[in-house]
C-alpha cells in the first residue's frame, strides 16, 4: 500500500511540473501582451489613433515631434510582399522537388541543408547583404544606393525560404498515397498528378507555409535594419530605401527616454506588429484546420 501511495504521489508531482511547463508559454504570451498594451497605449493620449496610423512623418525626438507610422508600416508590408516574391517560388519549388522528384539520397541531403539556411544568424545575413549584395545591386541596376527594399526583400526571402519549404514539404507528405495511386490508375502522368491532384490536396497546407513565411519576414529585425536603408518615406518603388517597423524599434529603443512619448510610440509600433503577426497566425491556423478536415485526418 505504502509503495503504491509513493508512486501515486510521484506521479502527481510530475503531472504538476509538466502542467506548469505547458502553461508557462501561455503565461509569457499573456505577460507580453499586457506589457505591449500597457506601454503602447499611453501614446494615444498625445496623438490620435488616426494621426499615429496615417501620419506621414516620423520625427519622434524633434522639439516639434511627429509620430506618423504610415511610411514605417508600408515599409514593413512592402519588404514582406517582396520577400514573398522570393520565398514562395524558392520554398514551394524546392518542396515540390524534394517531395516528388528527388531520390532518397538527394532528399536526405537537400532537406537538412535547406534547414541549415534557417540556422544562420540574421546578423550574418544582414552583414552579407550590406557588404556584398547591396553594392552589387547598386552597380547592376545603376541605382544611387544599394540599400533598398529590393535588397531587403531578397535577403528576407532567402531567410524565409526554409520555413516555407519545410512546412510545404510536410503538407505534401500528408497527402494520402491513395490519392496519387487513384490518379495514376486513371491514366494521369506524373505532372498531371502533381498539378491536378497533389497540389490542390496540399493547397491549404502550402498556404499555411506561405503565411508562416510572411510572419517570419515581417518580424525579422537585424537584417532589415542593416540592408533596407531606413528612409521613413512612403515607398513607391522597390528600388527605394524603406524603414520597416522592426528596424525602427531596434534602432531607437536603446536610447529612448523611458516613459517618454517616444518610448510609448515604439511600444505602440510593437503592438501593431504583434497584431499583424497574430492575424497571420490565426489565418494560418484556420486554413490548416480546414486542410486536415478535408483530407479526412480529423483535427
Amino acid at each position, binding site marked *: 500500500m505504502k509503495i503504491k501511495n509513493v508512486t501515486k504521489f510521484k506521479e502527481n508531482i510530475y503531472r504538476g511540473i509538466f502542467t506548469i511547463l505547458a502553461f508557462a508559454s501561455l503565461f509569457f504570451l499573456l505577460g507580453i501582451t499586457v506589457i505591449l498594451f500597457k506601454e503602447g497605449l499611453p501614446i494615444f493620449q498625445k496623438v490620435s489613433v488616426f494621426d499615429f496610423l496615417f501620419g*506621414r512623418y516620423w520625427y519622434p525626438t524633434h522639439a516639434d515631434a511627429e509620430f506618423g507610422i504610415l511610411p514605417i508600416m508600408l515599409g514593413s508590408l512592402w519588404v514582406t510582399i517582396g520577400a514573398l516574391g522570393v520565398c514562395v517560388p524558392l520554398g514551394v519549388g524546392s518542396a515540390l522537388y524534394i517531395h516528388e522528384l528527388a531520390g532518397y539520397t538527394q532528399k536526405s541531403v537537400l532537406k537538412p541543408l535547406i534547414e541549415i539556411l534557417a540556422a544562420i544568424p540574421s546578423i550574418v545575413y544582414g552583414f552579407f547583404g550590406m557588404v556584398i549584395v547591396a553594392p552589387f545591386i*547598386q552597380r547592376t541596376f545603376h541605382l544611387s*544606393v544599394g540599400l533598398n527594399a529590393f535588397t531587403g526583400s531578397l535577403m528576407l526571402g532567402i531567410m524565409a525560404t526554409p520555413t516555407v519549404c519545410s512546412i510545404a514539404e510536410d503538407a505534401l507528405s500528408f497527402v494520402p498515397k491513395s490519392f496519387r495511386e487513384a490518379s495514376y490508375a486513371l491514366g494521369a502522368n506524373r505532372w498531371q498528378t502533381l498539378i491536378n491532384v497533389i497540389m490542390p490536396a496540399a493547397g491549404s497546407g502550402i498556404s499555411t507555409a506561405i503565411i508562416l513565411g510572411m510572419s517570419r519576414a515581417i518580424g525579422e529585425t537585424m537584417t532589415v535594419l542593416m540592408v533596407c536603408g531606413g*528612409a521613413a*518615406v512612403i515607398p513607391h518603388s522597390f528600388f527605394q*530605401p524603406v524603414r520597416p517597423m522592426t528596424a525602427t524599434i531596434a534602432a*531607437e529603443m536603446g*536610447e529612448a527616454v523611458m516613459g517618454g512619448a517616444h518610448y510609448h510610440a515604439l511600444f505602440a509600433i510593437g503592438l501593431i506588429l504583434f497584431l499583424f503577426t497574430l492575424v497571420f497566425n490565426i489565418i494560418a491556423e484556420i486554413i490548416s484546420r480546414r486542410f486536415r478536415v478535408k483530407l479526412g485526418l480529423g483535427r
Partner: protein
Amino acid sequence: MNKLKRQLGIYTLTLAIFALVCPVNAHADTITIKGSTTVLPIAQACAESYMDQNPSVNISVQGGGSGVGIASIIDGTADIGDASRPIKNAELSSAISRGKDPKAHVVAMDGIAVIVNNANRISAISKKDLKAIYTGGISSWSDVGGSGGKIVVIGRDSASGTFEAFTELALHKAKTRPDALLEASNAAVKQVVQTTPGAIGYVGLGYVDSTVKAIPVDGVMPKEETVLSGTYALARPLFMYTNGKPTGAIKNFMDFVLSWEGQSLAKENGFVPLK
C-alpha cells in the same frame, strides 16, 4: 536524524558566512553617473576600466539625456551628471536655490566629420549647403560642385548622440529630410558611404580613415587641432557635472577620466581627447 542535523548545520554556516560577507561589500565606494547618451560611452568605458583597477569602487552608469544628467546633480540622485551641453540659466538658479553648486568638467570634445565617397570630386562644402542637403533644399551633387549624380543623404537614428549634435550644430534644429537613409552606428554610416558613390554622411571624428573622404566645412578641415581650437564648426565640448569640487572617490574617478588613460578611452569611442 543525524543527517538532517548536519544539513541544518551546513545551511546555518552558509547563511552566517553570507551575513558576514555582504556588509563588507556594502562598505565599498559607490559612484552613480547619469545623463547624456553622447557622453555615455566615455563614462561607461572609463568606469569599466577604473573598476578593474580599483575593485573596491563600484560605479553605476546610466543614460537618460543631458537634462536628466543635470537634474540628477540638482536633486542629488547622482554623483556625476553627464551633459553634452552647458548648464542652462534656469537649471543653475534652481540648483542654487537648493543649495547645490554644479561644477562643469570638460571631459572630451565631440567633433563630427562630414564624409563622402572617395570617388567624389567635391573638395569643400559650406555650412549653408550642408544644411540644404540635409533638410531637402539640394538634391544633386552638381549643385555643390561634387560628382555622383543624386545625393544619397545618410543620417543616424534619431536617438543617437551624434544625430542630436549634428541636428543642433549643422541643421540648427531643423528636421532631417524624411527620405534620408538611417544607419544605426558610426561604423555603418562609414560602410555605406564607402560603397555608395553618391553618398554623404557624418561620423564622429574618431571614425574617419582612408576608406572615406572627410571634407572641410566652411574651409576648416575636421582635425583634432581644429576641434580643440574651436575653429571647426561641427564640434562641441562634452561635460561631466559634479556638486561642488569633487572629493574622495569621485575626485579620483574624475582624475582618471582626464588622465592620459581616460582620454585614450574617449578617443577609442570616437571623441576628440583633450590631450
